[in-house]
Structures are given as structure tokens and as C-alpha cells.
């Protein structure tokens, strides 16, 4: 397992080095107004929402599912909170708004879980419903406008700093929490069992439905927190664009991290690396000045390169060595 993560890690390092070569100051860190400031910090800060969503997605994918609705859920969370805050500047209003939003997200997760585990609808279609309708709901909440707020407490979630960006601290906290919960309880093993062989798990008495329900709720709550970060980062809720296509980034992060879309074994650390790789890639495009019209080609090449170095078969073919048996 550890060995498997070596390659994504190398890919990440290579990308960062590319930045260093083009922009020598990329790794430079300085303290400014009591917090760290620099290119790496930006990668962490901006990567936090993708990371969070990818964490939720990892568990969903481990059960053989997929959740396309996370982007819409993120938009709803931001919209609800900003509309609740309105013109208020008070911290308590902000917290109340966020609490309402997250509870709502949990409900949306329950809904996805109901469609998948209750009605037995294929996850991709089940969550497509919320992906479409959810964005409509977010726009309904904001009436199609970008709702701007001016609330210092709310700003902290996405743009605040406690030396490091608050957003990455939150994301890492959630990562730690999930890692702890899935390893220290039997949840991780049961999720994998359900993902690898649902029928065998059912006959072994595993509560597959509850587990599926749990992961969708978790994914939705993660998406909610990510939505708060996205909206808080610019102090505004943009129902239409917040979290647009982030589900694709999140799935990509999970897959780059070595988790198979066919379900089963998953790696949270892999997902962390995957999310960082994706964010670094985006930042790289901006920093090294790739022209917008070639951005996509550049991304395509990097993604394939990252995958090729990871694939044992490709490495074997490239180095003309027989696959080593250790």
C-alpha cells in the first residue's frame, strides 16, 4: 500500500519542482499579518474544497457508488448560509447559517442514500437528479443573484488564517477524523466488504444499506463544508458557478489516488495526494502562464503522464524490465 503511494507522491513533487523552475519564488514563504504567505499556501488553501469533497467521494466510490451531486450540494450550502447571513455582520448569525446549511446537506445526503440504498437506483443516475435539481434549488434560494455578504466570522472558513489557511486545517481535520473513524472502528472494513461483494456482505449480515446511507450523508456533509469554503473565500454565494464540475475533479483525485471506481479497497492518503496534484496542476497553469487556449491540452498531458508513472504496467514497459517480483 505504502509503495503504491510513492508514485503519486513523486508526481506531486515533480509538478511542484516544475513551478520552482519557472517561478523561483514559488516555494518562498513569508509571514504576513501573522500568517504564512506563498505559492504553496495557496495550493493548500484552494485545494481544500476539492480535498474535502474527494474524501467523501472516496468512501462513496469504495461502496461501488458515485456521487455527482456534490457540486450542487456545495452550491446549496453556500447559498443558504449567505442568504441567512444577509447583511448581518455577527458571528452568531454566521454560525447559525452554517449549521442550517450543514444540516440541510445531511438531509440531501439522506435523500441520495434513499435513492441508492432504498430504491436501488444506480448511483450515477440517482445522484444526477440532485445534481440537476440541486443547482436549481441553490438558485431559487439566491434568486439567481450572486449574494454578497460582509461577515468576518464567515470569512474565516474559506479565507481565514491561523498561521495556515483555516480551510486546509478544516480539511485535514476531517481527513484525520475519517481516517480515525474508519480505521479504529470497523467501518472501513465493512465499507470495503460492501464494495467488493455486496451479496456476500449481505449474507454475512452486514448492514449494507446503513453503510451506503452513511457514506452518502458523509459525502454530502463534506460537500457542504467545501461549499462553505468556496463561498466564504470570496464572501459571496454564486449558485450557478460554485462547485461547478468539482465532482469531476473530486473523482479524478480519488482515482489518481489509487482507489478503483469498481469499488472495494480505498486509500485516503491517496486521495489527499490526488487532490493536491489536481490543485497544483491548476495553480501551475496560472503561475507558469500557460495560455488559456492550451490549458486543456496541457492538463491532458499532465494527467496522462501522472497516471503512466503510476501504472506498474507502464513502468515495466518503459524500463524494459520484467515486473519485479519482490
Amino acid at each position, binding site marked *: 500500500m505504502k509503495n503504491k503511494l510513492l508514485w503519486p507522491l513523486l508526481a506531486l513533487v515533480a509538478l511542484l519542482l516544475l513551478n520552482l523552475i519557472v517561478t523561483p519564488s514559488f516555494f518562498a514563504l513569508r509571514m504576513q499579518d501573522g500568517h504564512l504567505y506563498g505559492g504553496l499556501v495557496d495550493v493548500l488553501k484552494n485545494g481544500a474544497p476539492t480535498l474535502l469533497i474527494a474524501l467523501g467521494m472516496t468512501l462513496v466510490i469504495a461502496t461501488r457508488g458515485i456521487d455527482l451531486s456534490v457540486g450542487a450540494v456545495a452550491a446549496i450550502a453556500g447559498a443558504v448560509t449567505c442568504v441567512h447571513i444577509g447583511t448581518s455582520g455577527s458571528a452568531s448569525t454566521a454560525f447559525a447559517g452554517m449549521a442550517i446549511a450543514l444540516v440541510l446537506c445531511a438531509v440531501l445526503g439522506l435523500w441520495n442514500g434513499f435513492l441508492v440504498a432504498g*430504491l436501488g437506483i444506480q448511483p*450515477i443516475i440517482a445522484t444526477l437528479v440532485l445534481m440537476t435539481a440541486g443547482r*436549481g434549488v441553490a438558485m*431559487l434560494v439566491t434568486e*439567481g443573484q450572486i449574494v454578497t455578504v460582509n461577515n468576518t466570522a464567515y470569512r474565516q472558513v474559506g479565507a481565514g488564517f491561523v498561521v495556515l489557511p483555516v480551510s486546509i486545517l478544516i480539511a485535514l481535520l476531517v481527513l484525520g477524523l475519517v481516517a480515525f473513524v474508519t480505521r479504529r472502528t470497523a467501518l472501513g472494513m465493512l465499507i470495503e466488504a460492501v464494495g467488493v461483494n455486496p451479496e456476500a456482505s449481505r449474507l454475512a449480515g452486514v448492514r449494507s444499506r446503513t453503510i451506503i446511507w452513511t457514506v452518502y450523508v458523509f459525502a454530502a456533509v463534506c460537500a457542504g463544508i467545501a461549499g462553505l469554503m468556496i463561498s466564504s473565500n470570496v464572501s459571496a454565494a454564486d449558485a450557478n458557478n460554485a462547485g461547478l464540475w468539482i465532482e469531476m475533479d473530486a473523482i479524478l483525485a480519488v482515482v489518481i489516488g489509487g482507489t478503483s471506481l469498481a469499488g472495494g479497497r480505498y486509500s485516503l492518503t491517496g486521495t489527499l495526494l490526488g487532490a493536491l496534484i489536481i490543485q497544483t496542476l491548476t495553480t501551475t497553469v496560472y503561475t507558469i502562464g500557460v495560455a488559456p487556449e492550451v490549458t486543456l491540452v496541457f492538463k491532458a498531458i499532465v*494527467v*496522462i503522464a501522472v497516471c*503512466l508513472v503510476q501504472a506498474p504496467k507502464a513502468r515495466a514497459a518503459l524500463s524494459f524490465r520484467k515486473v519485479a517480483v519482490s
Partner: protein
Amino acid sequence: MTTLAQRVPSRFLPVLATVALFVLAFGVGSARYDGFASGQVIANLFIDNAFLIVLAAGMTFVILSGGIDLSVGSVVALSTMVTASGLQAGWPVPLVIVAVLLTGSTLGLLMGLVIHKFDIQPFIVTLAGMFLARGLCFLISVESVSIKDRTFRDVATAAIELPGGVTITYNVVIALLVVAAAMYVLHRTRFGRTVYAVGGSESSALLMGLPTTRVKVGVYVISGLCSSLAGLLFSLYMLSGYGLHAVGMELDAIAAVVIGGTLLAGGVGYVLGGLAGVLVLGTIQTLISFQGTLSSWWTKIVIGVLLLVFIAVQRTIVRR
């Protein structure tokens, strides 16, 4: 005979359920809106979705084999771009068509080879393919390019009269031919049956001595070919090439296929299901535009709700 009667429905149930729902939705539309119950509305459903029908047919192959192809929307865009800029540069129409179809199939072939030879998940490879194809569009031109070629325009605007005053376009004919061809290949040829086998269990198919490599790569070539053909139809439909055409169309295609009862895990499903799925999505849109009073957000919500109603009802019918 009774066994036949019992078996056929259970296998075709998802497709039949989708078709039944489509008919039902159409009935509701006719009852509610003036002018809905006309042959032309049905014909328009085909005219407006011909490219999606072709995409869904190609996607069916990939999904049946247990894979997924996210690149199709971008390949459609790339095809429109190649068509438009080729024609603008004065290439003859047949050359343009060949170039487009070759581009699509080659991309499919490359993706298939990478997926198979290096054992990388289809999701990533085709996502990279999606980036690449759209990126290539922008490399050709960031602006949209009009198609002014006479032949193209004539074909695009030609109307084929059907009995009852209903007209369709050549696109529809091509799309239906593609569906027929896809059905033939999937159900009547060794390749097609092997697609099902690989989707059912790849390791078993391998141990059964079936040519899994050919199939696993082949489905992506077919999907690439279908995407570029869909791109040609799209060029005819839009008479323009543009890098932002068909954004997110891969999701529509996947959704149509899955709504039609095909299992994303592979091995189970029919091309006709994909066709029915496209018609369902099209009907939802038609219903909404006939309603004509929905705000942007209610449009999204209603699309979601109608989608839910369709799949939930279909699910209950299939489960019995």
C-alpha cells in the same frame, strides 16, 4: 411458449418500462398543451436529439463492456471544429467527413490502447481525452466558425417529407441507421457478444479464451467513431464549429444509456434502451419548453424532478 412469455419481459423490462413511460409522458403533454400531440413534435424529438442518439449508441458499447467514456462530448466539439475549419479552408466535403471520422476513431483507439495496455482506469484516460479534444478545439480556434459550404447547408436544411405532413432531416435517418447497425453488431456478431461477456466478467471472458483485448480496445474505437459521427450530425444541426459546443454532453449520453436500463457495471443492457433514454430526456425538455413559464431555477428543479419520476417509476415497474 410460457417460458418464452415469462422470460422475454424480464430481460427487456427496463427498456419496455422506459418506452412505456415515454408514451405516458407524451400523453400527459398532449393533454396539457396545445399543439403537443402532433407528429412533428415527435419528429422534432428525433431531429433535435439525433446526435445524442448516435452518442448513446456508442456509449452503450463502452458501458456494456464495463468501461466509461467521458471524452464523447469533447470529441463532438472537436469534430464540429474540424468540419467547420476544414470546409472554411476549402477542403472537399468527402475529405472533411473522412478526416473527422478518422480523428474520432484514432482518439478512441489511443484511449483504448492506453486503458488496456497500461491498465489505467477508463475514467482517467477518457477524462484526459476529454481535456485533450477540447483543448485541440481551442488550438484550432477559440472563436466559433460558421459553415458556409453549400452541400453541407443543403443537407442540413433538407427536409424529408413523411406521411402526415411530418418532416424529418437526414440526421434522423443517419441516427436510426446507426442504432440499427449498433444493434446488429451487439446482438448478431461475435464481437458484440464478447462485449457482453467482457462486461459480465472480464476474467471469465479471458479464461473462456475470448479476444478480450480486441473488445476492450474496440469499444473505445466504436465510441470514438460514433462521437465523431455525432459531431458531424451536430455540425449539420448547428452549421458551425465551436470549442464550447456539447459541453457536458457526455453526461447526457451516459444518463440516457443508464436510464434505458443499462447497468453501469457492464454486461446488461440494450442499444434500444439508450434510444429510449434519449427520448425520455428529450421529452422532459419538450415538456418544459411547452410549459414556457418556468424560471431558470425552476427549469433545473423540474428537470431533476421529472428525471426522478421517470427512474423511480421505471424502477418500480422492473422490480414488480
